């Protein structure tokens, strides 16, 4: 083949160039939309001083990092955040996994109603629910207690741990369980050796969502926990209200780190298919 045939005529080249340019422009716009705020936050976190109309900070440095870490409540709030996230996720796992299995495998009256009720709890504006819960918590002395805050967090994590795992269990072929029984395993061993491992991708996603959800819980914790129990999210409210945006940016970055790490670890489990399975009502 001669060299000449490989070179495209100029008008074709121009047309391709235009289309590619348009595509790049759209991609850039999207990137800016999704990641722009994140980038900006990132820049702000490393600014020592910043005045509003300017786009970029006047001076860079770690001043606000030092400030945030020197706050007496910062480390406590980080510890608390993880404490609540771990406890609420673990507890809802223990409570919800058997329930999810029952919902997936056994036909009983009101099965769909139960599934729906779990969803309903999350359909109302949270603040209204927290208010009524607050009233009850006052009566029974749960205000400002660890258990009180934990219950608030579990309100969210339990829904995650019912719906996605129920879908994951439903997608485990029954024959796999029957084959295990046939081979000599009792019901419990069958569940732990076959059902749970096969359903694990869906359950891992649920754990991730529950954990991230708990880390991000703010309104209920503010309501029930303060001032005894502070988490990173509730601290952030204070920081944003009292200090310049740069301190808020540092805090926000700190909040993103655990979520980011979790997403990286779990990325092999997170796919459209797993998600879709979780939300089938069947």
């Amino acid at each position, binding site marked *: 083949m001669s060299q000449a045939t490989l070179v495209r005529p100029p008008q074709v080249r121009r047309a391709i160039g235009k289309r590619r340019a348009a595509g790049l422009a759209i991609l850039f716009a999207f990137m800016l939309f999704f990641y722009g705020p994140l980038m900006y936050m990132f820049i702000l976190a490393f600014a020592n001083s910043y005045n509003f109309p300017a786009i970029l900070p006047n001076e860079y440095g770690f001043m606000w990092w030092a400030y945030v870490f020197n706050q007496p409540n910062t480390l406590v709030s980080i510890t608390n955040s993880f404490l609540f996230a771990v406890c609420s996720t673990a507890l809802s796992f223990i409570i919800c996994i058997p329930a999810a299995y029952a919902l997936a495998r056994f036909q009983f009256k009101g099965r769909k109603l139960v599934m729906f009720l779990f969803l309903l709890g999350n359909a109302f504006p949270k603040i209204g629910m927290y208010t009524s819960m607050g009233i009850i918590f006052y009566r029974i002395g749960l205000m400002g207690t660890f258990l009180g805050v934990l219950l608030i967090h579990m309100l969210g994590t339990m829904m995650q741990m019912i719906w996605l795992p129920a879908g994951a269990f439903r997608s485990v072929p029954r*024959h796999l369980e*029957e*084959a295990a*029984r046939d*081979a000599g395993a*009792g019901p419990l061993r069958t569940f732990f050796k076959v059902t749970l491992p096969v359903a694990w991708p869906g359950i891992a996603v649920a754990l991730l969502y529950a954990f991230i959800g708990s880390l991000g819980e703010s309104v209920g914790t503010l309501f029930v926990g303060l001032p005894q129990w502070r988490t990173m999210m509730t601290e952030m409210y204070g920081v944003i209200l009292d200090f310049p945006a740069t301190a808020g940016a540092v805090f926000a970055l700190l909040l993103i780190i655990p979520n980011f790490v979790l997403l990286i670890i779990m990325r092999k489990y997170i796919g459209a298919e797993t998600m879709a399975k979780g939300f089938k009502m069947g």
Partner: protein
Amino acid sequence: MSMLEIVNMTKLYKTGDGVRNINLTIQEGELVTLLGPSGCGKTTILRTIGGFLDVDGGDVRIAGQSIIHLPPEKRPTAMVFQAYNLWPHMKVYDNLEFGLKLRKVPRQERARRIAEMMALVKMSGMEQKYPGQMSGGQQQRVAIARSLLLKPQVLLLDEPFSALDAKIRQQMREELRKIQTDLNITVAFVTHDQEEAMALSDRVVVMNKGAIEQEGSPQDIYHRPKSRYVADFIGEMNFLQLADNKVLAVRPEHVQVSQGKGGELDGYVRTIMMLGHYIEMTVDTDYGIVKTFISDEQARQYGRGDAVALRFNRRQEYALD
């Protein structure tokens, strides 16, 4: 010695479907096929033997012992399903080892038995594969191996080859039959494929709507079908309605064709179709279309519209229902 006895067993679902008053005995080393269309209750019977369904009445005995009160893990049976037999998160070796570990077989012995079994099903070398990395046929081989490792007194096979390609299915049938006779295993085999039932079985049990319609050797079932239902379900059959409320049933290979007129039934050639090692010719008669199987040479003598005379070498008669 009778290995499996099903005595007056009934299992009904809420919908009213199920099986009623089933009586069936399988001898030691015998391969018996439960044959019927979907919904006839054949899988229901198999699942009551395996322990996956409770019976509503009657008894199921293995080697003389009633097993109906035992859960599946306590029964001396092993079952292979149509699909989803192997645990996808375990390698082939771990799949095979699972049951042996539960039976507290020592490690060395486990390895020896697994190697032996893998050789028997011609799967040696695949031990470290995951089920997802194997073809459907290979998976079914491993599934059968896993069941055989448990040394069941009765092996239950629920359409194990139905999801496979025709060629592989054929091959698997032959190998299963060989292993079964070599090891003298007692097998209850469920299928909707009459050809498979014929090819494999010592005895065929034809089922219809939750009851046993006929049981007998493949030859019996094929040549002496007791009812029109069995005659229709097994193989190809011409049904000719006679005047006195009777139906005449003739297999296409039992129709003798000659040129001209003066047969038991006369007609005209309708179609001639090449089907490989034989020719299918259909003939228009006063009693409807009659299908015949003839040889290639014979077929050359006929053309569409030719007058032909038909005689029947063998026939069955049934009352019109």
